[in-house]
Every structure is written in C-alpha cells, then in structure tokens.
C-alpha cells in the first residue's frame, strides 16, 4: 500500500510543482477546438437535433481524458531514460502492481485536471450538461484504460522517438475518429465497424449520453470495465519485461 502511495505521491508532487504551467497547457487544445470547430465551423450545424457545440464538448472531454491519461507515458519515459528514477522503483521492495497502480492513478489525475479545465471553459461559454455518475464513470474508465496503455507502451518502447510513433499512429488518429468530432454513424458501414471497435468511441458515447441526461449506456460501460481490467493486466506484465 505504501509503495503504491509513494509512486502516486511522487507524480502528485510533480504535478503540484508544475500546476500553473500544466493547467495552461491543458487549456490550449480544447480552447482551439472549441473556437475553430464549435464557435467557428460548427455555429450553424446541428447533430441529432442539438447544436454541434453540445456534440463536440463531450467528444473533446473523451479525447482529452484519453490523451492526458496516455500522456503518463511521457513522464515514465523521462523517469526511465533521462532521470533514471524508474530504477529507484525497481530497486525498492514494492510489487509491480503497486508501481502500475500508482502510475495509472496519476494518469487518471492528469486526465481529471484536463477535463476540469474543459468544463470550466464550457461553463464560461454558457453550455451546461448533466455531470452524473455515468459521465464521471466514462471519463475515469477512459483515462484508466489509456493510462494503463501508456504505462505498457512506456515499458515496451526503447526510446522517446518510438514513443512519439505510438502517439502519432494510434492516439492522434483515435482522438479524431473515435466519435469525438463527428457521429461515427456518418461513415460507411465497414469504417463504422472499425470505429465502433475503438475504446474511445464507447467512452465518447457513454460520456455524451450521460452529459445529455439520457441515462447510462450499459453496453459501453460494461465494455470499458472489461477493457480497463485487460489493460491493467497488460500494464502489470509489461513492468516485469522492463528488466534487462
């Protein structure tokens, strides 16, 4: 338990020392997307009988919780390849699970901070949603899954450059295609099949439906819980592989 706390506390302290910079950087992308796609391009658009802005914001929340959750991989890489702090964890009498949970939780914390920034901007723009348990379950599960995958990728890859490849080829396309900026149903049937297999699509749908106050999407919720368990397992096993 103390091992998990130590790993998590270290990340929290780093967040605390960088908080103003971090919050500022969290606000740049969503603000740009909201201005460009929401207020600019999407001003006259409607999706499913609602203003496009109301469709876009839950999608942005899903995408942001994914990228910030997955973004823990950068911190782990710095700790592993540059600061070598990862070796301090490896040499300590803690279990792999304690390490993995500490890092994942810090990814979830970063994701929640970024979502907080979007919600602040949203409320300033005069858009209000329902923020019930379904909404937060979607955000947290999504962040948990991608933080776990972030830990896994950080353990498997051998350099910063490889990490950038993973982000460019997997995370960035998913952020655009996973039901964030447009309804997946608008795509041709075979593409739809592919997009509906993405965890982000389910997270975006779960978050959107809950934000509209239309209840829980139980299917998406169950799938995200399953994926969270699987990704945790993957992260757990990847830590052991990091030993040379």
């Amino acid at each position, binding site marked *: 338990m103390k091992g998990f706390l*130590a790993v998590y506390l270290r990340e929290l302290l780093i967040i605390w*020392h960088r908080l103003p910079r971090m919050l500022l950087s969290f606000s740049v992308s969503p603000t740009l997307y909201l201005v460009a796609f929401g207020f600019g391009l999407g001003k006259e658009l409607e999706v499913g009988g609602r203003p496009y802005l109301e469709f876009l914001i839950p999608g942005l929340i899903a995408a942001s919780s994914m990228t910030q959750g997955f973004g823990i991989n950068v911190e782990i890489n710095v700790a592993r390849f540059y600061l070598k702090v990862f*070796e*301090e964890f490896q*040499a300590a009498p803690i279990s792999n699970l304690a390490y993995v949970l500490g890092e994942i939780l810090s990814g979830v914390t970063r994701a929640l901070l970024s979502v907080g920034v979007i919600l602040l901007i949203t409320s300033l723009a005069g858009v209000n949603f329902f923020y019930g348990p379904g909404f937060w379950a979607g955000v947290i599960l999504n962040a948990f899954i991608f933080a776990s995958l972030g830990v896994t990728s950080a353990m498997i890859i051998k350099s910063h450059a490889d990490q950038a490849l993973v982000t460019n080829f997997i995370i960035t396309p998913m952020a655009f295609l996973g039901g964030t900026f447009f309804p997946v149903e608008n795509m041709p049937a075979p593409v739809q099949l592919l997009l509906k297999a993405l965890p982000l699509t389910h997270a975006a749908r779960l978050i959107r439906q809950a934000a509209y106050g239309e209840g829980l999407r139980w299917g998406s919720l169950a799938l995200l819980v399953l994926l969270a368990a699987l990704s945790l397992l993957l992260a757990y096993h990847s830590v052991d592989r990091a*030993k*040379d």
Partner: protein
Amino acid sequence: MDAVRVENLVKEYGPIKALRGVSFRIAPQILFAFLGPNGAGKTTTIRILSGLTRPTAGRAFFFEVDVFGEPVKAKKLAGLVPQTINLDLELTLYENLFIHGLLYGLSQREIRKRAEELLAFADLLPRKNHKVRTLSGGMRRRLLIIRALLHRPKILFLDEPTVGLDPHIRRKLWGLIKRIQQRGTTIFLTTHYIEEAEFLADRVAFIDRGQIVIEDTPKALIARLGKFAVDVVQEEGLETRYFRSREAAERFALELSGKSQTITIRRVNLEDAFVYFTGRKV
C-alpha cells in the same frame, strides 16, 4: 553469517558474456570493493544484486535471505547508490527522501526524523526545502547516498560513487563513506579509481572481463608483489620490477643506470597489483 554471499553469477546479453561465474562473500561491516576497468562487470553485478537486472544463472544471499527467491525481503536489507544520479530534480531534497521512505515502508514520523538526521549528517540540512536542481554535483551525490541510507539498510551498494567528481569533493565523500561503515553498515563498492579502493576498502576483488581474478585485502595484494617497485623506461616501453627490500631495488637500479635514462624507485601500490594480476591497466 555472511552479509553478502554470491555464488556463480552469470549474465549473458545474447552472445556477450557480461559475468562468467562470479562468486564472493562479504563479512558484516566490511567495506568490499570491486576494482576493474569499464565493462569488467562491476555495474552488472550491482544491478543484479539490487534487482534491476535479471541474472542468467547463479544465486545470491543477503544475511541468508535469497535475493532472487525473496526479492522484497532482500531489497529491504539493501540500499543502492547508483552510478547515475537518479534524483527527481524538480522535487525538493526532503520530498526525494520522503518518497524513498514511503517506498521502503517507513512511517511519516520516522521519515521526518531520519531525513533531518541524515541531511545534517551530509551537511545538507540548510538545503532541505530547495529543489534538487539547485544543488551542485557533489551535493547531489551526497543526497543520493543518504537517500539510500534512509531505511537503515544493512548493506549499502555504491556503484562508482565518486565518478566525475573533483578530487576535493571525492575526498569529502570518502570521509562520508567511512563514517557510514563505522556506523555498522556493510558496504559493497565498485570503482575504477585505484586510490579509492586502496583508501576505503577492507577487501578488494579485481574483476576483469566478467570474472574475479583475485580477492584479498589491499595490503596482502600489494605484499604479494613486494615492497618496492623499480620503473625502467626503455625503448620498448615501461618495465616494472618488484623487490622485497629497498636495498634490492637500489641494487637493480644501479645495474641499469647506464642502460636507461629514467629509473624510478617507489613503493608498490594497488595499481601494480592490478596490472600484475590482470595484465591490464584499470
């Protein structure tokens, strides 16, 4: 009971054999040094014993606790000072120590007490709440050492603790290491500085190409060669001969005085012993 017992440790990276059956024992409260050139297998040994690297074969015990069989129990007995300064630069000195204390299961109260005590021990108490980024190289190295001591390890692994430091800072660290040993900690040190091993170590093992060549006290290793050395610079290069007495060394030097312009008589040192037993310079 040995503080450290290592049996036939082997590490292979594909076709490369980093360790070829390393075995040694360290008695409690002894400062044991691994002396060898870069790539000899010093760091690999420490990394395996600290749980950072998996061995290909072999066994190791800390006070009879199986290092690979009961890693969590074994890790509690050891402290590691790695060659690379792996501190969190953005955190303060105290925060770095606090995280380490939690990792080793110490209570908050215990960490606070130990941290104050150790920061004072290493003359770093006034910098307690400064970020590590603001510290000099020597200060960071001292912090690294006291961090490894926070959980009161019985064995301390020091991997090239003074590499890259100025000579005066190196000497200051030697004092700190000696004081740690005097407090009852067993120390396993790797170095490629001959004078460091000679000054600090109770016992020295020469390691070369993944194998221990010889192990003994520095005095005994030197005594195997003699007391005095005569360096003779010739056209073929430098030749060194060893003698039991100064008179014998002087007699030899006198005989050669017409043949070489540079003849030096000096005391035999640990470097002579290393070159003699391994056939290589450190």
